[in-house]
């Protein structure tokens, strides 16, 4: 039963990810994020893009659990918050410059996620979603009572800690570039997973978990790996973000609003696609920022944001990119 000679139809598929146009579109977007504010030393644009990058990181990692594996993680903010805490706590200790502290946060959080993941992922659907909320609340409760981390009052970061990075002005730029790097890694991670065997297994789980198991997909292992792998970069991002804010407290770090927004963004953009969460995050963040400072809308910006969400959910349930794919199938090859 040797496999037959592969037909031309298969050869038509790109040899490697480097040959796929979307790979280069992502690279272009990253370059834009780096170049645009740097050219004009435009600090305001940088602040705005930084928030967009954070949302993109959260949404594209979340997309792997929601859009591929079909598990809606309501409490995904716990990775961001716990990573933030670990980094803020470690930074300033000997041997822990910012990059190391943030990385350590990422490693610890994804290790914990692997352990917790095996347990939490025994549940499905709504039970899983509730359990993820429970994980977030549990971690928040722990931190609130953990005095080495400031308990409910939180931790403050001394401005001296910005000195190794060249003072606050330079540090804010460095942190921005680091976050853009994490954003790039997030996009490439979700892309790489999607075209890999691992991603195929996750997608199968998302379609029909039991059938996938019968087909040989090691569902328990894959789900836990996905949960853990997509905790890593958000944890690092949390570390960088809270370092920049110079202050972290449990009610902010574990605020479920963030993960709910991330879910909304994934839906808005188009779950299961790579471009979807990124585009959704970018527009959502820009819109919110604009509404906040606009003279006309700032008083009811929450209403506008909510209305927009409703419209998208009612009329574009596959999200922006998903709907575009359905309308123009050839678009799939370029914008994935």
């Amino acid at each position, binding site marked *: *039963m040797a496999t037959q000679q592969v037909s031309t*139809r298969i050869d038509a598929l790109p040899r490697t990810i480097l040959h796929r146009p979307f790979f280069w579109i992502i690279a272009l977007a990253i370059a834009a994020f780096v170049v645009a504010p740097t050219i004009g030393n435009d600090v305001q644009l940088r602040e705005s893009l930084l928030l967009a990058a954070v949302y993109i990181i959260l949404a594209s990692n979340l997309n792997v659990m929601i859009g591929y594996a079909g598990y809606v993680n309501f409490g995904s903010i716990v990775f961001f918050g716990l990573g933030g805490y670990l980094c803020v706590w470690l930074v300033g200790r000997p041997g822990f410059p910012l990059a190391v502290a943030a990385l350590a946060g990422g490693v610890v959080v994804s290790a914990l996620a692997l352990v917790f993941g095996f347990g939490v992922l025994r549940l499905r659907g709504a039970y899983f979603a509730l359990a993820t909320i429970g994980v977030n609340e549990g971690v928040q409760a722990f931190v609130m009572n953990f005095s080495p981390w400031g308990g409910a009052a939180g931790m403050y970061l001394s401005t001296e800690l910005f000195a190794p990075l060249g003072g606050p002005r330079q540090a804010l730029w460095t942190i921005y570039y680091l976050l853009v790097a994490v954003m790039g890694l997030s996009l490439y991670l979700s892309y790489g997973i999607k075209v890999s*065997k691992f991603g195929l297994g996750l997608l199968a789980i998302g379609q029909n978990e039991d059938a996938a*198991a019968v087909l040989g997909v090691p569902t328990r292992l894959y789900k836990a790996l996905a949960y853990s792998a997509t905790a890593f970069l958000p944890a690092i991002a949390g570390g960088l973000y809270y370092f920049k804010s110079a202050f972290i407290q449990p009610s902010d770090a574990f605020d479920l609003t963030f993960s709910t927004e991330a879910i909304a963004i994934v839906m808005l953009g188009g779950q299961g696609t790579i471009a979807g969460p990124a585009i959704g995050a970018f527009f959502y963040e820009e819109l919110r920022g604009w509404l906040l400072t606009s003279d006309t809308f700032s008083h009811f910006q929450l209403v506008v944001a909510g209305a927009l969400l409703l419209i998208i959910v009612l009329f574009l349930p596959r999200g922006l990119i998903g709907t575009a794919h359905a309308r123009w199938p050839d678009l799939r090859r370029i914008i994935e």
Partner: protein
Amino acid sequence: MTALLEIDGLGKSFGGLRAIDRLSFVVHEREILGLIGPNGAGKSTLFNLINGVFAPDQGSVRFGGVDITGAPPHRIAKYGIARAHQIVQPLEAMTVLENCTVGACFGSRNLSRRQAEAAAYEAATFVGLDDRLAIPAAHLNIAGKKRLELARALAAQARLLLLDEVLAGLNPTEVEYMIGVIRRIRERGIAILMIEHLMQAIMSLSNRVIVLNSGQKLAEGLPAEVANDPQVIEAYLGDPELARQLHGGS
């Protein structure tokens, strides 16, 4: 012929209901073993016990000499047993090719995605789905979906296929086509355990037939022997349509 699948003293209860009771039989390499019986006899339950959806209460399942009793479904697939379900389970949003690729990737051979795509293409062609490779599985008609079940199982390079009523719901032309495919599968050296209600198909395809009734083996032997066994006929009296079929009606 060498034994490939050995079922020995298998038993399973659900609450007070004895679904499978002291069941023993063998599937040999390269043979098609037909599995028939009235509704509720326990045929699909037997499949569930073989491919790990449930663990049996008593007895053992051996495959290629290895004890696989109670192993979880994804491990069973690695051993080389694949299943086509009675109620089709396509991975709806994925294309035909992607469906088969999943089977190939995670089946008995540990293939990379690229290698799996080649194997998937081959399996899809074998069942005649090569004209629909890029179509999402949800858009196939019932015949197509049935073929997809089969293709996925084939793509997994299994040594034993568990076919659960793959002919149900098909028109006569489709049935004939599928029978041809099943024959060609046996020619490739793959063993098949198939549940079927279409007597004409079972009788023409099977090397041997087993009859299940109320979880117990009622009869076992060549198709003609089984068809004329008085106990079998009596069991099917409870199902007049099937009784008619047994004797040449259809």
